[in-house]
């Protein structure tokens, strides 16, 4: 099971057959990061990911701002998934301050975070499609994504960077008639993404290119500490929405998607299957949501946490997203650490690419559901 992992290219002896190739940081195929690969002919013998080109010091900035003014900048690492990236921070601050959130706000949060998960996944799917040379798969998700962005715009007032979750609830109540519009759009959206099976997921060319490439076994997925779709594509049933339900996820009806193959194809299929579950969750939440009531507990200005630390995690579009907050009785957090899915899954990249053909690099890399800006924070 254990392929030997490269200990970093600096430590490796290079013989003259081996060529070192920099992919990125400007190359669109790598996102905002550099992947240094060593190739022997067409085969990758070693790979060294070099992230950090979009490191913005979110964690340092968080130490200079108070618990509330931290909200708009902490969502920046993944603006397409901004609700989910704020979620653990907001849950953590609520535990530190001892706030109980109104029931209606919990449902609004769940709806917003599921919509956001779909928006993120559609963006990722568009890029995954175009890097496999399937330009229709770029156009369709990019277009269908607008349906949900319109919904989120109605809900929060912003298309992408919502900053909608606040400690104590959500910023605004839903606009009038939102439930009907949301139901209609989500039903149409679900119908659309089911059509992707015919054009993309059942496409023999896609299957030929991605099945059996970059196989991650169950043992290694656990050992490397991967998360989210990478983990569930390798046969580990672990979704925090089921395992450690936050807000009202334990009252909603959905299932987790697990595949056993562990290859690029399975890894790219899980987020798509998840989107259909998201539609189910949204419909069920709309039905169960209290029709009226407060959506926010108002806090004192400049709330202070106690002398405590808290670690909260949620299931984001890229897997478990944890937030560790240390408070020292000041209005600003003493330390905020974001443990993000992208950063945790990156460790699998050198492992998966070793022995792979160079032409398979984009499909393996994007199947990791990696978002460079999130990994760098």
């Amino acid at each position, binding site marked *: 099971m254990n392929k030997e992992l490269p*200990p*970093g290219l600096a*430590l490796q002896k290079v013989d003259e057959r081996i060529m070192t190739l920099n992919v990125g940081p400007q190359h669109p195929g790598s996102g905002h990061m550099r992947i240094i690969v060593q190739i022997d002919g067409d085969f990758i013998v070693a790979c060294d990911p070099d*992230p*950090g080109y979009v*490191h913005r*010091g979110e*964690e*340092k900035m968080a130490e*200079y701002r108070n618990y509330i003014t931290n909200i708009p900048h902490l969502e920046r690492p993944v603006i397409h998934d901004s609700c989910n990236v704020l979620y653990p921070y907001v849950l953590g601050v609520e535990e*530190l*301050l*001892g*706030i*109980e959130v*109104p*029931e*209606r706000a919990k449902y609004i949060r769940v709806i917003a975070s599921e919509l956001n998960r779909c928006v993120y996944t559609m963006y990722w799917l568009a890029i995954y499609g175009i890097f496999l040379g399937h330009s229709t798969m770029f156009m369709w998700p990019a277009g269908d994504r607008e349906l949900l962005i319109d919904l989120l715009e109605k809900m929060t007032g912003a298309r992408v960077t919502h900053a909608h979750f606040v400690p*104590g609830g959500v910023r605004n*109540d839903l606009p009038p008639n939102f439930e009907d519009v949301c139901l209609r759009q989500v039903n149409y959206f679900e119908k659309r993404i089911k059509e992707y099976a015919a054009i993309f997921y059942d496409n023999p060319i896609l299957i030929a290119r991605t099945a059996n490439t970059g196989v991650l076994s169950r043992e290694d997925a*656990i*050992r*490397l*500490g991967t998360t989210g779709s990478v*983990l569930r594509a390798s046969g*580990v049933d*672990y979704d925090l929405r089921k*395992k*450690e339900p936050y807000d009202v996820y334990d009252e909603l009806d959905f299932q987790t998607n697990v595949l056993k193959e562990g290859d690029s194809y399975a890894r790219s299929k899980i987020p798509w299957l998840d989107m259909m579950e998201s539609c189910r969750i949204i419909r069920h939440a709309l039905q169960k949501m*209290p029709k*009226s*009531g*407060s*959506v*926010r*507990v*108002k*806090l*004192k200005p400049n*709330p*202070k946490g*106690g002398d*405590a*630390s808290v*670690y909260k*995690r949620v299931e984001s579009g890229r897997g*478990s997203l*944890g937030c*560790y907050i*240390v408070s020292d*009785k000041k209005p600003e957090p*003493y*330390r905020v*650490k974001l*443990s993000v899915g992208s*950063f*945790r899954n*990156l*460790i699998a990249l050198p492992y998966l690419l070793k022995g792979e053909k160079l032409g398979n690099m984009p499909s393996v890399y994007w199947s990791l559901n990696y978002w460079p800006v999130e990994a*760098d924070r």
Partner: protein
Amino acid sequence: MSSDSDNEQIEATSDAKSASAKTSPPSEKEIELPKFEKGLADKIVEKFGTRIKVAFVKPDRVRINVGRDDVKEVAEFLRDVLNFDHAESVSGVDYPQDKEIEVVYHLGSYTDSSLARQILVLATRAQREENPIPGNDTTKLPSLREIFYSVEFHEREIFEMFGVYFQGHPDNRRLLLPEDWADLPPLRKDFAIKGR
């Protein structure tokens, strides 16, 4: 949970009558410790006695503080006996007034379904120097990479951000910072943001 009176909230915004909107003030008296988590903490205490300190036992979270000489042994026990199999997160926290840097491992388990909700927080502290020379001063800790493979990149990040050198880590290079970074490790408290 804190009993700080600053934390009490004022009335709910729009609908003060709504029962669910009521705030719960931090409770004064100690709540009964959760059973499962208490059991976990007891197993560790039974094995290591006074060499470790249980910092808190909360629902789904147990935190233990360990000295830097014992951290590897404790981590091995957590993996082999208690079935924690991966690190979710590794954070550094700088405490200049204590002259120490804390490294906090958040461990979880995929294989043991009874531990699916649990996070075991393993904290240890390294000595901190005023004028750090990352890698060549006394700010060192044993690496847990041999025990938990998943800490590899996390420990590299802490090395560059806090200057904590992990002994036994196979790949002590920078990860996120530029190659020509020649300032203090940036997440230390004495590295100040300009204009603040």
